[in-house]
């Protein structure tokens, strides 16, 4: 179980012959992810770690069945890669690529919505359902099969918290990085809904950061819908000054909007326990699940 990806996920790696693509294809294969084909323009006919490479997704699909894609293509070409996956009917698309222009991301999300496809990212570590499928670049060793669904806007901070949950023997059902860009394919609410339906997920860790108001909307949703599973949150960026991008393109306080403070207040008002430090998440959830 878990959400979105599982042992039946069959993956095409777009940009498989690049340094990143090659490295993470190996790591994903080692984790047990079913990678059926790779795509790199002009490199059709090659193999990467035993995975056959095609020039286009369409050609790959003439030979293999797949339902997901992970994209390592450089930013200027990433939109085309995503559109290629979409037009060819792949329904789960993880975009690892960072620095994709906003205009391109808007176009990707627009077409994804029409195609009923799920986009994870861009600028995401990806998604992992421990012991079943790793579709991303996260270090496998910090994750263990368990009961906490993690949804996050960051990468390493998520590994930090996942690691804490693993050590606390809670583990993870699925861990999903929304991505650090202003325009990403999923929001907290959408993922919260999936976790609510997933029987393996007993609690949710929500890891937000400054910028935008996805956390505030999640808080509103949790409150209004009476979310049924315990949620603990951490919001990074309490010390971030306004008008400055903190590493992520999406992590920016605009005027008075998108501060950590408003997010924390909204979540607490919705009854979500917000951790002061990343290390506290495991403690909070362990306690909630015990009671």
């Amino acid at each position, binding site marked *: 179980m878990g959400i979105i990806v599982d042992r039946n996920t069959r993956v095409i790696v777009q940009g498989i012959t690049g340094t990143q693509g090659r*490295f993470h294809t190996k*790591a994903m294969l080692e984790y047990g992810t079913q990678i059926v084909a790779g795509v790199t323009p002009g490199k059709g006919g090659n193999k990467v770690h035993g995975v056959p490479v095609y020039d286009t997704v369409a050609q790959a699909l003439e030979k293999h069945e797949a339902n997901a894609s992970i994209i390592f293509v450089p*930013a*200027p070409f990433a939109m085309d890669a995503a559109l290629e996956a979409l037009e060819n009917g792949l329904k789960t698309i993880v975009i690892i690529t960072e*620095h*994709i*222009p*906003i*205009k*391109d*991301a*808007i*176009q990707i*999300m*627009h077409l994804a919505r029409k195609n009923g496809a799920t986009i994870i990212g861009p600028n995401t570590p990806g998604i992992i359902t421990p012991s079943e499928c790793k579709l991303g*670049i996260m*270090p496998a*060793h*910090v994750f263990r099969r368990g009961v906490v669904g993690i949804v*996050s*806007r*960051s*990468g*390493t*901070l998520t*590994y*930090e918290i996942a*690691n804490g949950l693993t050590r606390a023997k809670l583990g993870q059902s699925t861990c999903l990085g929304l991505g*650090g860009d*202003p*325009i990403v394919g999923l929001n907290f609410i959408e993922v919260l809904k999936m976790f609510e339906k997933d029987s393996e997920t007993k609690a949710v860790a929500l*890891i937000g*950061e*400054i910028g*935008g*108001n*996805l956390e505030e*909307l999640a808080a509103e949703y949790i409150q209004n819908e009476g979310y049924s599973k315990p949620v603990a949150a*951490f919001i*990074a*960026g*309490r*010390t*971030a*000054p306004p008008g*400055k*991008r*903190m*590493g*992520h*393109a999406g*992590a920016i306080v605009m*005027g*008075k*909007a998108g501060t*950590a403070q408003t997010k924390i207040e909204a979540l607490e008002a919705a009854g979500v326990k917000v951790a*002061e*430090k*990343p*290390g506290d998440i495991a403690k909070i959830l362990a306690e909630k699940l015990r009671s």
Partner: protein
Amino acid sequence: MKLFEYEAKKLFEKHGIPVPRGKLATSPEEARKASSELSFPVVVKAQVLVSGRGKAGGILFANSPSEVEEAAEKILGMTIKGLNVQSVWVEEKISVKNELFFSITIDRVKRSYVVLASSVGGVDIEEIAAKTPEKLVRFPVNPDYGFRSFHARYIAAKMGYVGDQQKKLAAIFRKVYAITMELDAELAEMNPIVETVEGDFVAADARIIIDDNALFRHPEYEKRLFEAGASEFSPRELEAMRKGLAYVGLDGNIGIIGNGAGLVMATLDAVQYYGGKPANFLDVGGGASAERVASALEIVASDPKVNVVFINILGGITRCDEVARGIIAAKKKVGYEKPMVIRLVGTNEEEGKHILTEAGIHVLESMEEAAEKAVKIAKGENRKWE
């Protein structure tokens, strides 16, 4: 990347959007001379890439060339929110009947561009939204249609304009949209756009922010990004950008380096939680190679305020022994001698720790503990950590 007001106005003008006649000047004399080609009264406006210049005294009116020179004298060399004013824009004052607001920006929730417009302008959008929400038109652009003539007219109509005025205003709105698309802008704003006493519309202020990630499609701006004084970034921020590092300067004395934006933000927060003050945000990004750590340390250490550096690396894919070697090499290369606190966990953690300890650097496992240590050192409570 923010454009200067005068740049945005020149772009607007090129696209046929009326703007006040104006001239750029970098000295009081030049400003005086520039004003001779304009009709008085004029406005002398600081060209600086932060908002709030009005309140800071960066906008002055003048009725004669000598008043222009005087105003430019006052404004040039001013520092507004940390940025030096290097030029002024001298422009004709327009006869205002109404001040309106028009902006195109990104709607993160709808994942689209959004048009914001109001028949109340000249104040910031938060104020408009708070005080006259009923006058704020919010129109998300559906990519299937784009922002078309009928959308623009509908908005102009909602702002209370009819007939030819409605058409004129709508035409301006569409041009702003065209600029937004052409330039990959994440913000294009006229605040205010003025309805003149004659019934015309003039963009009295203009703001454009280009999506940094789209600069590869706009080489003319990309190359300018790193020119001193041509962007909103400080020299140290520019230096970091050149090296592909995300750096933001802050006021404190604890230099911070980490891998991953969220983790670094959390590190800053932890430092503050324990009573310390971060001197910066610095994300070395994925990999955290020896080279990148060295570049990072160089930048952070070049800040004279910094009296301790806290490096927080969560080794994920990267092996900790490699990172440890990288840190030692970096320290040596940069010649950094002040205290350092390092938190290092992940693959090959033990070996990494061993390497650092061997080199006389102390390592902690918990981010929280390490933050606490760094704060103590910064406060001079724990000199043995040097």
